[in-house]
């Protein structure tokens, strides 16, 4: 039986390796960092881990409704397609930095992309 995407990419260890890199990119990205200005960096990093586990096709308990609710506060603050694109860019750049093969990057991008309407509350 073929392994899941999550397994092929390296499971939790891969997510852990990606969290710091992804979070650093997001905090440094002037287009979107205002959404991530958490008071507590550890808590914010834990949330990035939730995001990455999801995008890596890993075990998670998020539904479309959760995505909607989870980002509703941000939509009120003006979250739109351009911000979504920026997150997609940072995700791809993180994976490239970790030398993830291009076909796996594409699979992950597709998972993240599938949430666009829920994240943007449409």
């Amino acid at each position, binding site marked *: 039986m073929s392994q899941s995407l999550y397994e092929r990419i390296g499971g939790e260890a891969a997510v852990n390796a990606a969290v710091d890199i992804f*979070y*650093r990119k997001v905090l440094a990205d002037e287009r979107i960092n205002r959404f991530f200005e958490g008071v507590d*960096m550890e808590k914010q990093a834990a949330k990035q881990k939730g995001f990455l586990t999801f995008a890596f096709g890993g075990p998670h308990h998020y539904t479309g409704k959760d995505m909607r609710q989870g980002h509703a506060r941000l939509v009120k603050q003006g979250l739109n397609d351009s911000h979504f694109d920026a997150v997609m860019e940072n995700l791809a750049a993180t994976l490239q930095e970790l030398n993830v093969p291009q076909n796996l990057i594409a699979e992950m991008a597709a998972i993240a992309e599938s949430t666009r309407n829920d994240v943007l509350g449409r």
Partner: protein
Amino acid sequence: MPHIRFEHRTYALGDNESVLDGLTRHGVSVPSSCRSGICQTCIMRAVQGTPPPASQASIKESLRARNFFLACACKPTEDLEVALPGNDDIPLTAAEVIGKDALNHDITRLRLRTQPGLVYRAGQFVNLHHDEVVRSYSLASVPQTEDFIELHVQRIAHGRLSGWLHDECTVGTTLSLQGPLGDCYYSKSDVNQALLLIGTGSGLAPLWGIARDALAQGHSGPIHLFHGSRTAAGLYLMDALQALAQRHPNFQYTACVSGGGTQGDYRLGRANEIALADYPQLKGWQVFLCGNADMVKTTKKKAFLAGAALKDIHADPFEFSATPSTEQHHTEQDHGLSCTPLAAQRALSLTQRSRAAD
């Protein structure tokens, strides 16, 4: 809205309110100090119900397994029945003051003899208990080479415990302490790693311990300690730090004065800004940040953006709260009458904090 049951009474929590804020608002006396999930003074146990993970993240595994949690970090989504810890849960150790001297005009050094067997690492902290006030102080001593524990206490205007420690406590006084706590200490994972230590005020205490601990354990990578103060008079242990740098070529010490002044044995500017300008690339470094809470938080983020891994950044913000509740509500359960509105407390705490930011 979740309800909290405590000593046979039930209290409703407000929207997004912590168990600590909710109980103290109702006049229940719960010890607290930092009110930001660091000092562990407000530890309680859930007798019924499950506390949220965030309220248990920083406590010892053995306490977590028994449903202990930090009340100031606990915003439950379900009802909880809670209890204060018993004396056996949070053991207090007696410690006798064996030395007391001034490090500068407002920082006192205390040396304490504890019962043998206190296992700790330089840079951790203890909670001192005195007269119902509990405050955290960092450990500046190195257990391998020193048979006392050392604290550096900065005098805070109208400060209850720091004032008492400066003015009343003398050699021979017996103190009651809890700990060690916290994970801001040197771990010998890679002796070649570069270490950056930044502290302001008595934030030098843990760093003085951590630097000497690392050197005593044979750390061979570069260690650079930056100590900041607003005035030159606020610097201390300069001779000892310079002597340490003489003895250890891989140790470097830079004193910084942010409030202006004439040039001396120090650089002009804020310690954190000078340090990050000297080292704009921190990939692979271990970073220790102690003292003023705003300095610690800003620098933590900057160090992370400069490439340090989150797990390699150890931070001890010396958090305090404007009106710690314990000492304010001596009358328990006088419903509704006793409290300063929380919003006002918060606002006060914020203005004081920004004023305190050096």
